[in-house]
């Protein structure tokens, strides 16, 4: 679309606008399902909320590389190794798109990275659990990427254009990951007794943390209402969790495995599965930094960053030298 055709332009050049008008026009614009673009006016709170949301998502992609990276060197076949490596590489790419989307809002990738390694930023708690077996590569792809898709598909239609477009690319790849993860689980569930046991053990450990990925129950969730109105969150935590369970249980059955929830049952009248209560204490503990791997994940990220300082400095020193050379060549040529 041409810069001038963009719908947000009018309220920027209106004759007698004041903050109230801007806000109202912004809200109306979003209500009409229009996309906000980087240069458009937006309320500070919208900008801040989005930066927080997008950067948390970016951090999750980057921290998420670690638990799966843990098994690349031990993948049990060369084909699985290649698939896993490509997957983890995709996650790095997702991190990059998302940091770029955050940068369109005025954030800076280096600052965001600093916040992450200083422990000031949040990321998805699921990555604070350890990967203890090869089956975890299956369970993560299937359940964790699966839950991420549930959360993210609606964001492909979120109100902020650069984020929505990043999510379209990300979701395409996440659905590959989900299928590959399921393939690993299927392969294990059709394998030897040890392989089946590995798959069941992994499902036991990842099931509840995956359900927690959708966030607290709706009653106890903050900032929901405003984010819904702004269309940067499109369904409630409980709605998404329910969809995930409804989608996943038939797959669990197909694998011949069972979820570690004795209360789980099909409700004929609602057409949904009912699940047992979630241990929210565990969720809040992990968020508070007391999960099994919080410290390790941040330490690994910090080490990578610090160990890379001299490399990034060298690259920018070299780029500066080359720029200086190019400029002086231009001056000579002139």
């Amino acid at each position, binding site marked *: 679309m041409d810069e001038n055709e963009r719908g947000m332009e009018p309220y920027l050049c209106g004759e007698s606008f004041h903050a109230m008008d801007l806000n109202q026009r912004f809200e109306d614009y979003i209500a009409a399902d229009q996309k906000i673009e980087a240069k458009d006016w937006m309320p500070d709170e919208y900008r801040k909320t989005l930066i927080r949301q997008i950067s948390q998502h970016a951090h999750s992609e*980057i921290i998420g*590389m*670690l638990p799966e*990276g843990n098994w*690349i*060197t*031990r*993948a*049990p*076949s*060369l*084909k*699985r*190794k*290649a698939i896993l*490596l*490509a997957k*983890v*590489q995709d996650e*790095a*790419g997702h*991190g*990059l798109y998302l*940091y770029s989307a955050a940068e369109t809002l005025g954030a800076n990738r280096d600052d965001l990275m600093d916040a992450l390694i200083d422990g000031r930023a949040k990321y998805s708690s699921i990555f604070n659990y350890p990967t203890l077996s*090869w089956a975890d590569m299956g369970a993560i792809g299937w359940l964790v990427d699966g839950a991420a898709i549930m959360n993210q598909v609606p964001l492909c239609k979120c109100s902020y254009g650069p984020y929505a477009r990043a999510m379209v690319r990300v979701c395409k790849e996440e659905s590959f990951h989900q299928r590959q993860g399921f393939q690993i689980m299927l*392969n294990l569930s059709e*394998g*030897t007794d*040890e*392989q089946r046991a590995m798959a069941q053990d992994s499902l036991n450990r990842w099931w509840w943390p995956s359900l927690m990925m959708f966030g607290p129950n709706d009653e106890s969730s903050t900032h929901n209402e405003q984010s819904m109105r702004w269309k940067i969150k499109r369904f409630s935590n409980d709605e998404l969790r329910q969809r995930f369970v409804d989608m996943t249980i038939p797959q669990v059955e197909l694998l011949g495995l069972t979820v570690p929830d004795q209360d789980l049952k099909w409700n004929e009248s609602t057409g949904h599965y009912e699940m047992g209560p979630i241990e929210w204490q565990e969720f809040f503990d992990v968020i508070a930094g007391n999960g099994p791997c919080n410290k390790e994940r941040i330490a*690994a990220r910090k*080490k*990578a*960053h610090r*160990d*890379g*300082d*001299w*490399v*990034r*400095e*060298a*690259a920018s*020193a*070299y780029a500066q*030298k080359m720029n200086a050379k190019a400029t002086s060549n231009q001056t000579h040529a002139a």
Partner: protein
Amino acid sequence: MTKAQHIDWLLSLADDALILGQRLSEWCGHAPALEEDIALSNIALDLIGQSRALLSHAGRLEGAGRDEDRLAFFRSDREYRNLLLVELPNGHFGDTIARQFFYDQFALIRYTHLAQQTFDSEVAAIATKALKEVRYHAAHSAEWMIRLGDGTELSKARIQESVDRLWPFTGECFQEHTILDAAIASGAMPDRSRAQNTWNESVGAVLNQATLTKPEGSWKQSGGRDGLHTEHLSYMLAEMQVLPRLHPEAKW
């Protein structure tokens, strides 16, 4: 070349790629910048892809029912035929880049020849694809050599140290060896001294541009082609092979 020599030769090609790919994959998630996580994973993926094609070919030629995974996961370090250079631990980013640079320059020469030789047409097809990949790898490692060499004082000192430390391991690329000599005689591998001269020239040119000093020593570390490795390979294989060895019945 006898059939046994032919298989050994294929394994030497496959193992170089597999072992270096395995090493590079250790970087995933730990690189100095996201862009390098992506680049190093990409290179690792290419190398693993090359090794899979070469191992499958070797297994078919052998005709004993060993597929790529059987060859990758059930050979001991003494049966691996890779260069010592590619099994060395990653060290810091500069060490990894210097190792990659020396290898890429060698791989470029080797695959250029492999793509054209007529001794083994399947290898020619694999090499034609690999050559495209290796051109990108070689550009990536050479660019980093230059950036680090001509970057800061610190980076220059570090990368020079990496170059000096790895240098003795580069001689093995061109060393005389029964199987490789047979491959050269069959036209399957490039002429040794011509290949070595080309390598010396291209490595020298990049080091020069990187304002680095090319080491003089001709002392060589070798043994990889005969399965006599550094202490590092056995650890690496222990990690890589653990699951298939623990569950020999399993399919993955």
